[in-house]
């Protein structure tokens, strides 16, 4: 009697578990029962407008999304544009910090509505989200003293230089691919310090960082960046099948036309040529 009861219970649990897991595989937009009785399921925009806010999934990542010292407000290139985007949709914006490894779970589980945090568009990202048109370029660039920039415009010309790179960074990776001789340092700022002090001939850092940290009016005004060694593009991720992708693309194009994007980019030290127009 007891054994039978246990067996029955186990069977029941497994059936429930199977249903739960099978339901997991469903894409919200493809769920016919939901689409028919709930207009919000068919249109992501309608869903967001019905709850009155756009929840943006971010990490603490200057200059895209970060907090100024002593302030509780999220600012940055991405944050400011996200605020403007929410305004055009007529909803409030809410930023929520997520575990970057769980971004797909967060998006599909609807705890966030988009991933907007300098996200590099990769095949993995494209497989699990609908991604906007790329809006910003990032690349690994070579940094040399400004007075020598002229002669080091290509990767080929820099072959003989001694490079400083951040240990374990994308810059270190491309340096290895190019067969450069490198000194590994603890971060990108230290790599710049090496070039400024003359202890290394050149550094490899990413374009966004370069735009913010070197050139006129910065702490490293006597440095300049030259050749790009690779390139990656940033996009905003939405749920599969979301109609917000189209709204975003239109929004961004019009903000570029109005000159607002360039203004915000300049404010956060993002190089004007990093913006994709």
């Amino acid at each position, binding site marked *: 009697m007891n054994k039978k*009861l*246990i067996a029955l*219970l*186990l069977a029941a*649990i497994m059936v429930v578990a199977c249903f*739960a897991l099978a*339901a*997991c595989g469903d894409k*919200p937009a493809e*769920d016919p029962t*939901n689409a028919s009785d709930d207009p919000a*399921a068919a249109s992501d925009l309608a869903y967001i407008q019905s709850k009155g806010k756009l*929840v943006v*999934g971010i*990490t*603490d*990542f*200057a200059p895209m999304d*970060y*907090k100024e*010292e002593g302030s509780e407000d999220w600012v940055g290139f991405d944050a400011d544009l996200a605020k403007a985007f929410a305004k055009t949709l007529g909803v409030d914006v*809410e930023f*929520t*910090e*997520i*575990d970057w490894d*769980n971004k797909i*779970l*967060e998006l*599909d*589980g*609807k*705890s*966030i*509505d988009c991933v907007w945090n300098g996200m590099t568009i990769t095949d993995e990202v494209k497989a699990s989200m609908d991604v906007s048109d790329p809006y910003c370029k990032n690349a690994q660039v070579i940094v040399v003293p400004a007075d020598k920039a002229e002669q080091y415009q290509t990767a080929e010309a820099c072959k003989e230089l001694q490079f400083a790179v951040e240990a374990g960074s994308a810059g270190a990776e491309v340096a290895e691919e190019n067969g450069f001789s490198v000194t590994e340092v*603890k*971060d990108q700022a230290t790599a710049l310090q090496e070039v400024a002090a003359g202890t290394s001939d050149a550094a490899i850092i990413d374009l966004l960082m370069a735009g913010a940290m070197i050139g006129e009016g910065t702490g490293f005004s006597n440095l300049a960046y030259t050749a790009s060694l690779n390139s990656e593009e940033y996009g905003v991720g939405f749920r599969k099948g979301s109609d917000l992708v189209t709204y975003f693309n239109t929004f961004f194009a019009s903000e570029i036309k109005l000159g607002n994007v360039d203004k915000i980019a300049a404010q956060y030290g993002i190089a004007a040529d990093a913006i994709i127009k």
Partner: protein
Amino acid sequence: MAAFFDSIQQNFSTFFTQFPVVFQALNVGFLQTLKLFFATLLGALPLGLLISFGSMSKAKVVNKITRVFVWIVRGSPLMLQLLIIYYFPGLVWHKPIWGGGEDGRFLAATVAFIINYACYFSEIFRGGIQSIPIGQYEAGQVLGLTKTQTFFRVVLLQVIKRIVPPMSNEIITLVKDTSLARIIALQEIIWAGQAFMKGSHGISGAIWPMFFTMVYYLFASGILTVLLGKLEKKLSYFKV
């Protein structure tokens, strides 16, 4: 040699410039840790007692269902339970009941922790209750007490005395387990410490803040050890 001392001195000076910022951020994280700890205790103690009654129930169905439930909760990782409780409503029913904000994440984490710890507590309670000789109930009956009266007036205090050591174990484990809630992006103290590795508050690449969180855990568990030790002593005025 001089270069070596220079580097040490430099490390110390970066440590002292970073310390106030890190300290503040860790305090905010630790507050979240403490909130989760106390909310879990508050919910799991009564729920655990209820579950222990279920698993001792003479009604076979109640008894079996409770035991299977306890088996599922104790038999699967708490990290997985956190993911299920937080993400399933949105993924499966397309209704994100918790919301995306920090408050929703805290609530979901609290529910997961209460259910999980209640199941552990229930087994400790059951062990304690069943260790009381049946003769005491019989004596209560002879004296004209009802079963409930016997339980609350005679048995319960003895149970509490017996379960303090195993409960101390679980409670101190709970302090440390709260760090699991970072999986659903609850910004407890380890999350706050790790943030300085990838960059936060203008500090990046700093590894020491994460290890420094250990001081907070040791502090909390130290206080709990002393308090629970005192409770044990206080209850030692009678022998069971």
